[in-house]
Structure formats: structure tokens, C-alpha cells
């Protein structure tokens, strides 16, 4: 029964919260969408936390996403043991970068009086959720090696079954504890997402790369009004 709740129902709750609340918040409270940077209050230690964390977590996120979208190609890549080894070691290095960065960020926040007064309950929740995901992820990487090989016939079919609304719980219910915890913490992160500063991910400034340099906004149609 617990498995059904955790692996059959919880993922849907997480996705509904992730999508629904994010959109609703964007429409109703656009002012609250911010990266909530604290570099202004403390800059030096931030570098050693923020940069490794973001680099690591971005590579891991897109690695997970690509693995889910192209399992066949990943299997082909892994056909040679040397390449499998390179993939796994790279992923592990990113995992270590992420945890080092995150622990650095947490220590930085805990040590600075200026940052402590500027820390909300939400900030702490984000740290806990991220820590859970990363620690369980590293646990999987270290205890259940070659995840980039075995995930194709466990996690990928499970996620696909979720998408077609027929959760195949058996695919994951019998995985070792580390893997199951990693999955649950990932969905927990998704459900927290839209209530926290994590929303800055979905407003990442990608259009900056191609938008016009200057922005001039006219209140009225300058060619037609004010003429007479």
C-alpha cells in the first residue's frame, strides 16, 4: 500500500503541484519570482559554493533527462566498458561537486549573521530537499554501480508508465532502498519546487542571448494617438 502511495500517487501530486502552482504563482504573484541571491551580503564564500553546486547540478539534471529520453543511445555508448567507466566517473564527479557546493552554501549561510537574518523557512526546506536528493544519489552511485546501465530497464519503463497514466510500481518497488529513496526525494523536490526560490530555474534568462539590446516601452501607439 505504501508503495502505491509513494510510487503510484505521489509522482502525480508532485507534477500537479509543480506545474499548477508554478503557473498560478507566476500569474498571481509575479513579484515573488526571484533567484533571491545573497551575493550582495556575502560574496567571497559564495563563489566556492554556488559555482560547483550549479555546474554539478546542471550536468546531473540534463544527464538524467537525456538518459530518460534516449535510453537506447546511452546503452550503445555504454557498450564499451571504457566508455561506461568514463560516463559513470563523470557523473560521480558532478555529484561530488554538487554536494561540496551545497554543503559550502549551507555552511556559508549558517556562519554569516547577515545571511541568517535573511533566511526563511523555505530556504531551509530547499536545502533539506536538495541534500536528500544528492545524498541518496551519491549513495546509489557508490553502492549500486553502473546505474547508467541498469536504469534503462527499471526507472525508464517506470517513468514511461507514469506518463501513460498506468503506473508500473513493480519496476521500482523492488529496487534497493537507496534507489527508492532517491526517487522519492526527487518527487519531493518537484512538489516543493513551486513554493520556493527554486522557481528561478523556470525563469532562467535564456532569451537574454538573443533579445534586442535596448528595450523601449511605449504606453500608447505612438503613430496613432496624441496626433490631433
Amino acid at each position: 500500500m505504501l508503495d502505491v502511495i509513494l510510487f503510484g500517487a505521489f509522482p502525480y501530486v508532485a507534477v500537479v503541484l509543480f506545474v499548477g502552482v508554478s503557473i498560478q504563482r507566476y500569474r498571481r504573484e509575479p513579484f515573488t519570482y526571484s533567484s533571491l541571491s545573497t551575493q550582495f551580503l556575502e560574496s567571497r564564500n559564495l563563489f566556492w559554493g554556488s559555482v560547483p553546486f550549479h555546474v554539478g547540478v546542471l550536468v546531473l539534471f540534463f544527464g538524467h533527462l537525456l538518459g530518460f529520453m534516449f535510453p537506447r543511445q546511452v546503452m550503445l555508448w555504454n557498450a564499451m566498458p571504457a566508455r561506461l567507466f568514463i560516463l559513470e566517473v563523470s557523473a560521480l564527479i558532478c555529484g561530488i561537486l554538487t554536494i561540496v557546493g551545497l554543503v559550502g552554501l549551507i555552511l556559508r549561510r549558517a556562519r554569516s549573521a547577515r545571511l541568517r537574518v535573511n533566511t526563511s523557512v523555505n530556504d531551509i526546506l530547499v536545502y533539506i530537499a536538495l541534500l536528500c536528493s544528492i545524498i541518496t544519489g551519491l549513495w546509489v552511485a557508490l553502492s549500486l554501480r553502473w546505474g547508467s546501465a541498469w536504469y534503462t530497464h527499471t526507472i525508464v519503463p517506470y517513468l514511461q508508465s507514469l506518463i501513460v497514466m498506468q503506473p508500473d510500481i513493480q519496476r521500482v518497488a523492488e529496487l534497493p532502498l537507496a534507489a527508492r529513496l532517491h526517487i522519492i526525494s526527487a518527487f519531493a523536490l518537484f512538489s516543493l519546487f513551486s513554493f520556493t526560490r527554486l522557481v528561478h530555474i523556470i525563469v532562467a534568462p535564456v532569451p537574454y542571448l538573443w533579445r534586442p539590446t535596448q528595450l523601449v516601452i511605449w504606453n500608447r501607439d505612438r503613430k496613432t494617438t496624441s496626433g490631433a
Partner: protein
Amino acid sequence: MDVRSQISMVFHLDKCIGCHTCSVACKNVWTDRRGAEYMWWNNVETKPGTGYPTKWEDQEKYKGGFEKKNGGVDLRAVGRIRGAATVFHNPSLPIIDDYYEPFTYTYEDLINAPEGADQPVAKPISMITGEPMKIEAGPNWDDDLGGSPIYAANDPNLDALSSEERTALFEVQRLVFFYLPRICNHCANPACVASCPSGALYKRGEDGIVLLNQERCRGWRFCVTACPYKKTYFNWGTGKSEKCILCYPRLESGQAPACFHSCVGRIRYLGNLLYDADQIVDAINRPDHELVEAQRDMILDPFDPAVIAAARANGLAPDVIEAAQRSPVYKFVKLWSLALPLHAEHRTLPMLFYVPPLLPMMASVGDGIYDTSIDQFLGTIDSYRLPLKYMASLFGAGNEAPVRHALRKQLATRMYRRQVTTDDLEEANVRLALSETDTTAEQAEAIYRLTSLAPFDERFVIPPMHREEAIEMLGDTADAKGLTGLGFREGPQRGA
């Protein structure tokens, strides 16, 4: 010709007494909030000095503004590529300590302290942490050259001087300073707007005011780095950037901005300019020494029938054009070439102009005695106590010519007025001074009047903002006929 109207400002530095009334007026209206305590959208600096935030003019450190590179002009630090590379940690972002840690005092201790042998004192506490703190910096810490060996001596503009000139400047008998009030320049080519990854910053088409949409800002802080004047600020509480809004709600109701309205020395002038937006690209690509002139060339003559026709074709209302014709800014900047942009070398085309201070100019010192026995009335510009090179670093983008002209024209005006009132100068000298600066007697009279006598309505010519037409951005007003109202309102509901 793409004619636009820009609300523009002139600060007449000879008249600034450094009282900070403008700063306090602004603080009380706009930045007396958590996260914004440290912000001074309007501040007054002593020059020479390091200013606020400390050494804001040092672009080696803060990397603000545009620079010429690869045959074009790009942001110095947070352009598309460099910005993306530093988005997780921006090495050229000023932090709170570059400004100062905001503080207050435990005033309640003065009243609530238990009876004791000593007088109770109000201890300084941080407005960030609430903890007791030692105050070591403030927004005008180097006011009137306080601590000048540390502050004034490190003014980046002094790099233009030789070491002898620098030493001479800080001899006690020669010490000299003036005040530099600063607000957002509402640039024609704003670096903050160019740098904003979220597109939250924008320039208002109708009046050129640069604003920051709080609902679109995501706190990436590129604007703080990009502004070479450090006039966008990061609110550490809300996680959003903020800046001077030129009191647009006041302007829209025909009132001067708070800092202008409260100015004790009456140094501030406000009015609109018509300028040709098509010339922006050309102007910002000129070499440094041509920048001041290129910006002046952009400004159009509001009496020229061709300009008026182009302005009307561009949707500018007749009364806006008429306001431009009465604009004191137009006179100071274009007609008289008296007012110059601050640090034009950053290529943002700042639309706040400064009349460089003529005083204190006399009194060279020999044997510790002030020598005022000069042949020529008020001496010459080259014996100026603040070297012209220094003023050129501030107001000429390194070029002395426009600064020299502005100072000599002011001098000619003073000589003319001296002759009118006391008639003790050689008439030939006065005429020579006037003709050398292309000043007619009528013009000298007009400069004198606008500088010294101008009442409120001549100093502030606020063009009508036509906000009544802004409703049309929400939709056709005819469509809303018979409904509950216009704008963002929701329908009336019973109960609840």
C-alpha cells in the same frame, strides 16, 4: 529622423552647498524600507573623493558601462557571453560593504535604561542583523574631504594628473573641493537596460524615464554591475533590484521630483529635450574625445520646423514640443554648451548634465599667503585650483575643450554682469571674453537670469505626460463602455 522626447536634468554645481536635503527628501519618500536602507537613489559626494559606493568610478573594479570592442560597442562585463559565464557568481558585483552597512541606534535605551551612575547611551546597531556594530562607513563618509588621505587621494579621476599636481592638490593651503549630487542619469543608451537578462528594465518611450519592472526582475543583478554610475541597487530583502524612478508619479501630476523640489541651492533644472534616436548608434561609436559633442549633436532644435514635423509624425503631442521649446535644459546643454554629461566615456549617453563649477578658482598661494592681486578679473581658467584635467576626466570624457568652453563662458557672463553692476572692468576685456565664447550680451543676460533669478516655473518645465492616454494600452476604451470600469479591476461580486 526618429524624434523622441526625454525628460532631462541639469545640475548647476556652482550653486550646490552640499546640504544633502535632496538625499533626505528622496530617502523619506522612496527608500526608507527594509532591504533599501543602504540605497541613496540621490546622493551628494565631495569631489575629489571616492564617492558612494566607494570608488564607483573605478571600472577596473566594477566593470560598468560600455566599451569599444571588436569594432562595435558592448557591455564591459555582463554582456551576453560574459554575463552567462558569471551568472552563478558575479565577480564585479559591488557588495554591501562597498556601500556601507546601514545602522540605527538603540534610542529606546535613552528612555528605558534603569537608573545608574552613568548617562544611558544609544548604541549603534546594524539594520541588517540588529546586532551592535562599529560604524566604519556611511554614504557620505568623506564629506567635505573628511579623511582625505584615504578617500579624496584615491579618487580615480586623479589618475589624469601628474604626481606633482596630485601632491599640490592636497597641500593644506590649497585644499579644494566641490559637491557632486548624483541621481540616475536616465541614459539614452542605458547600460542597465542592455544588461537585464529578464528584460525587466526598460526606457519609457514617451519621456525617456528608465524604470525597472519589479514583477519581471528575477534578481540576476547584472544591472548593478552594468551601470557605470552604480545607480541601480539590489534590495537584499526582496531579492529585486531598484533604482531612481525620477519621481514619475510626481511628474505625471505636474510636480518636480522630490530631490528637485527640495533643493535648497536651487541648483536643479528639469525639462524635456527632443533628440534623434537614429543618431544613438553613431554617437556611442565615436572615439572618447568626441563623445560630449556627439551627444550634443543628437539633441534637436525644438524650433526647427523640420524637427517639429518629424516630432508630430512620431506621435509627440504639441504641448510636449512646446515644453521642449521652453526647456531650461535645452538652453544649458545645447544653446549655451554650459552643461556637460558626467563620465560620457562609458557611452551610455547620460541625460543628466552638469554645469562644471567655476569656483573655487582664484587664489594661488605664495609663501603661505593667498594672492588675489591678479590682473584679470577672477584669473584665468588655467590657474584654476582644480586642474582642468581633473574636470575633463569627470565632464569631458578626458577632453578638456568642452569643459574649458563651459568655464570660460561662465566667466564671460560674470565679467559681463560685473560690468553692468559696478562697471569697474575694462570694457574691451569684457567684450573680448564674450566674443571668444560666442556669447552675446542678451545671451549673457539670459544665462545670468536662469542661473541666479529663475523662479520655480522656469527651473522646472515639466512636459504634460498625457497619462490619460495610457489607458489605451489596456484596450479600446469604447469596448469598456457600460462595464464596471477600466483597467485592471475585476467585476463586482455580491457577498463574501
